[in-house]
């Protein structure tokens, strides 16, 4: 062994550790966005628990609108199963899109319900109703907020994965697919809100 072989040896060791470092960083970033998804999950679950309450209260007033109510409930159930599969593999493209579209359908069903409810002032004045819808809209904001945190974490993961040396190893280490952002067709209030500044 000569000096050059020591140097080669050290370079090899350095490279091995560097690659291990890439692996660990990928795992850490993946963990981080999965943990961030758990935040969304908590909020969405709360939202799905609140919707039946809302429907139950509304039922008494909206005798002739049972179609709208049923649409809300079925959209809610679909979104719930979407959440379940998304929670099992957050960042997976198919389940993120499924959840996103299910949420979109639920959002528009809720929107229709809101329009219908405009016609029933006594329902809007109902104490219980006011409470549930306040809680619901507050939960919706929290969902949007934790979704932002999740998307930030996913972006950090994707960016690292695609950056220069890691891009060669990501595939081998089982990080072949980019994680998918979670996009909803947001409710009007949040869309009209100024950008970022959350």
């Amino acid at each position, binding site marked *: 062994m000569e000096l050059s072989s020591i140097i080669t040896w050290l370079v090899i060791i350095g490279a091995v550790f560097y690659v*291990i470092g890439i692996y660990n960083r990928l795992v*850490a970033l993946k963990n981080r966005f999965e*943990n961030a998804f758990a935040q969304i999950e908590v909020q969405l679950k709360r939202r799905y628990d609140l919707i039946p309450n809302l429907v139950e209260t509304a039922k008494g007033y909206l005798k002739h609108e049972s179609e709208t109510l049923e649409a809300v409930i079925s959209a809610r159930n679909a979104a719930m199963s979407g959440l379940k599969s998304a929670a099992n593999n957050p960042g997976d493209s198919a389940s993120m899109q499924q959840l996103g579209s299910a949420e979109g359908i639920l959002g528009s069903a809720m929107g229709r319900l809101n329009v219908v409810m405009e016609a029933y002032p006594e329902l809007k004045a109902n104490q219980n109703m006011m409470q549930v819808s306040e809680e619901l809209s507050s939960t919706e904001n929290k969902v949007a907020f934790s979704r932002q945190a999740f998307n930030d974490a996913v972006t950090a993961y994707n960016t690292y994965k695609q950056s220069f040396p890691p891009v060669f190893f990501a595939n081998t280490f089982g990080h072949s697919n980019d994680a998918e952002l979670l996009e909803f067709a947001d409710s009007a209030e949040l869309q009209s809100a100024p950008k970022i500044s959350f």
Partner: protein
Amino acid sequence: MNFFEHQDQARRNTKKLVGLFILAVLTLITVASVFISAVVYHYQASKPPVNQLQASALEGYASLPLWLNPEIFMLTAACVLGTVIVGSLFKWMQLSAGGQAVAEAMGGRQIQPNTDHGGEQQVLNIVEEMAIASGLPLPSVFILDSAAINAFAAGHNHHDAIIGVTQGCIDLLDRDQLQGVIAHEFSHILHGDMSLNMRLVGVLHGILAISLIGRLLLHAGRPGYRRGFSRRRSNNKGSGIALVGLGLLIIGYIGSFFGSLIKANVSRQREFLADAAAVQFTRNPEGIGQALQKIGGFSHGSQLNQANTEEFSHLFFGEVSRFSSWMATHPPLPERISRILPQWGGQYPEVAQPVTIEENNSAYSSEATSQFSGENPAASSAPPQPTAIDSIGELGTEQLQKARQLLNDIPRRLKQAAGDAFSARALIYSLLMKDSATEVQGSQWQQLKTGCHPVVYRHTEQLFQTVQQLPAELMLPAFETCLASLKTLSEPQYQVFKKNVMLLIRADKKVSVFEWCLYRMLTNNLEAKRPSPRLIDLKRASSACEDLLNNVCLLVQGTPQTAEAAFNKAANTLALKINYTAQQEPHFQHIDQALQTLRQVKPLQKPQLLKALACVIEHDGKITIAEQELFRAIADNVDCPVPPLLAGQALC
């Protein structure tokens, strides 16, 4: 021993660790060199020396036994040393992210602050109580998906500490037992074991690196291996590489054997200490005793099969793998139990795996009825009340009760808001506006309106009324309950939040004590800081002391005259040559700078510093809430967690 002596001992243990480590590396170098020399000699004996240099080298040392070539010896030593150093540095860098990195390496899942799962909620409640009772910042809690009963604490310092528990812990232990386990982990955090353990992980990784490379070489040199660079090589050379690989693997195993010995040596005594501390903290030997008994009676015990757990085995509550007793990182279970419960008969209870994971909220009801046990009057028959400095790093029934009471007194509405990153920010904004003058409040509202999201603004409006009625004593605790959820903010979200906090603090062009405390604790907890390994003597930090005391005197004493008197008294207790300088108003930047230096003061000298500080604060004979907060925040910045002050308790 008190907190400071424990910290000091942890430091000294680090020295012992380094000594053992050097010994292990030297042994490894010797073994590796002899082995490689022998292999090289073997191959060279069968063929003539390949080049001139080697030939001349062999001639030069003809008097030595031929197979022990000094040149090869040196080269091997350099390689082994290089590997160990690179391996250790690499791990060190990786772990610099703090406790969270450890939990993530083991596949931990963070418990969300607003979880709706009863068992998880209970763990969070216990951790929150203990954190407030001991004055530590709230650690994040992670769950390892394993049926075994085990727990760990990781992190470099109080601010990046995390606690991990297994799913088995949540499913199988009741509240008292869980509290015992968590108290054990808090002891590791408080007594400096945790940072020692993190160093241990880094150092041992260097030794293990050798076996890792050995395994790689063995794989590359295998005759059946027909890919890449090995294809061109002759079989003879391939088997040579395999032989070197095998040798390195064996050497690596010897290395990890040493590693286990070191781990065992450093960590076993600390486990007894942590068990004892858990009993002291909870005043309930049954809790932790029964938890240990359950490990004994449970088929999975405390054994984990997660990836990477072996590397962190000494961080855990119980033994991670079944090792022979002299390699164990933890003392034998029966011995631990009988030290806690001397009347224990040696029987383990039968613990069955729960059939289904209960999702009900029974935890809440048990919470409400759970009585604080161990309140037998004989044990606590009016001992003299310890001072705040004495109770640093200690945690007693009184502190726990105080913490529970504080948590109970925080209005439910605020607690709900604190559990969620979205509304927690609104809570903090309203805390910052609470004590402002009316016209300043106007401009603060204006700033919020432009700086933050309209929905957060509305939340702030809703919370503000409740916050306005909040007693001053509860303001910091209310803030502390927000920390867990604020940790879930993403980086861009945190930057916006921090900017808003700064704007609110600066709205009135001056900084109050509460605002400073809040800002310091916020940044200390949410921004990772590198630990400072260098220790300095208090005498060398005298200018920092001078700066700190000057500013604090001015803050807490109304007039320059009393400030000077208080300063001189403090200077006397410190026995340092420091001078009072008359200033117009206190500068918080100077306090910040001074604290950066004072943080590195030797553990055994920190009480002196805190006494001087207490002396200044108590000079006028009364302790206001702002002064308490200031004292606790400064102590927190020099890594001394001060429990909440009890009624009538003196500082020193």
